[in-house]
């Protein structure tokens, strides 16, 4: 393991400590922690060193993301959003936009990405947020919903339709007049991840806020931006599974019923085997996808969807198994395994639901096999 990654893991273990439970119960992460991690480059580790980032590859970022995911999925979700914003700026922005904005994202500013709308969830072709050019400005109008990390964000990358054709991603500072960010109360999972609805009413911004001048192909823009989010969620789910595996293993060794440890009861032992299988399958799928990313292989596109789907479904299944093994010990809010159970379920919905991933995978089979 590279030194930087090993040190980052130790630092995060230390910083999170035993606080993930209270973050989950209060639904809040300490802002100073997020700013500190952001300024150290840890919220988007793949950003190039030239832009103040750590310059990690996908495999290193993935292992780190899994580690944070094993500690706290809310914090990991913040990383997913910041990383997705950075990736979108990197792919869509001009050189000037890249150097300006990425330096801010590695300097302590927090970011989110806003795709979903009340009538555009899985079907992002139904997006109605408008970005209209007006001289040296662009004017943004629309309603975005369930934007992860938006409640903490200084800037939000908003995806919309351009008045003069094509799609665009515009960087909206949340302090601008006309921007209203409203935190969603009591989400099922990743409770402290700052999910919010965003109302944009005649938000006037400099035209330079529109990444790459806009006019991109909406499906390509969305697929590009989501690609990073899918990798991040997939690795985060590996972390959920690792934490569940450790908790279930420890409990099955130490807890005794009918005069012997739980693990020596065959029906419980089978749960442990299933949990190990889930963790290993998810890990291998993520490692393969990261390798494809780092090699620049075109296979990365499919491997990313596959990793996301395998990891999310295995995490949902694995965390349910862990609840079953720990039983009453884990059936209270805030407990690591209870959090995993709620958080993992949300991972089957975000960044491409199970069903959307299945459709993409099936399309691939129909088109190529």
């Amino acid at each position: 393991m590279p030194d930087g990654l090993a040190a980052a893991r130790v630092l995060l273990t230390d910083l999170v400590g035993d606080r993930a439970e209270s973050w989950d119960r209060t639904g809040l992460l300490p802002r100073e922690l997020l700013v500190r991690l952001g300024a150290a480059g840890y919220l988007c580790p793949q950003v190039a060193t030239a832009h103040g980032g750590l310059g990690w590859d996908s495999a290193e970022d993935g292992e780190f993301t899994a580690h944070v995911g094993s500690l706290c999925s809310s914090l990991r979700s913040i990383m997913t959003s910041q990383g997705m914003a950075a990736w979108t700026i990197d792919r869509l922005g001009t050189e000037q936009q890249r150097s300006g904005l990425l330096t801010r994202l590695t300097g302590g500013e927090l970011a989110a990405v806003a795709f979903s709308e009340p009538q555009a969830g899985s079907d992002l072709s139904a997006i109605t947020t408008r970005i209209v050019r007006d001289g040296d400005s662009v004017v943004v109008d629309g309603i975005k919903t369930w934007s992860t990390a938006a409640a903490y964000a200084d800037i939000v990358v908003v995806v919309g339709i351009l008045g003069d054709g094509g799609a665009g991603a515009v960087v909206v500072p949340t302090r601008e007049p006309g921007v209203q960010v409203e935190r969603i109360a009591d989400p099922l999972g990743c409770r402290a991840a700052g999910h919010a609805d965003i109302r944009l009413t005649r938000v006037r911004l400099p035209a330079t806020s529109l990444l790459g001048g806009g006019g991109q192909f909406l499906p390509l823009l969305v697929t590009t931006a989501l690609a990073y989010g899918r990798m991040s969620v997939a690795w985060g789910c590996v972390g959920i599974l690792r934490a569940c595996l450790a908790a279930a293993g420890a409990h099955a060794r130490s807890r005794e019923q009918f005069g012997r440890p739980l693990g020596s009861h065959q029906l419980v032992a089978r749960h442990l085997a299933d949990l190990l299988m889930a963790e290993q399958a998810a890990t291998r799928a993520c490692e393969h996808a990261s390798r494809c990313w780092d090699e620049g292989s075109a296979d990365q596109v499919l491997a990313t969807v596959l990793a996301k789907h395998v990891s999310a479904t295995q995490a949902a299944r694995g965390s349910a198994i862990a609840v079953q093994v720990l039983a009453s010990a884990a059936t209270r809010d805030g407990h690591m395994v209870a959090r995993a159970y709620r958080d993992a379920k949300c991972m089957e919905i975000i960044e491409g639901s199970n069903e959307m991933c299945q459709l993409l995978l099936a399309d691939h089979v129909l088109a190529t096999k």
Partner: protein
Amino acid sequence: MTQLGVHDATADSGEVEKDILRFLEAQTKRSWDPRVDLFAAGGLSSLFAMQLVVHLEQTHGISIRGADLRLDNFRTVASMVALVYRLRGAAGASGA
């Protein structure tokens, strides 16, 4: 540009076209006309558009970013050849 440069570029764009057609065929198990609209009804998916982006970047040493992620650049094999040629020229001009 010198006569030699023009000649090289022409030979080169033939290679780029061949590569893209090969990639399309290998991925989709069917042959494509260089001028057909790949993304028209019954054509390729948005996921495949992304695969094309990554393939072109990897194979031709270019970076497709920003405003170049327009559908018009990927609509046909011919438009992708033009894109590769233009971005290679840009990379050469900036000394990359």
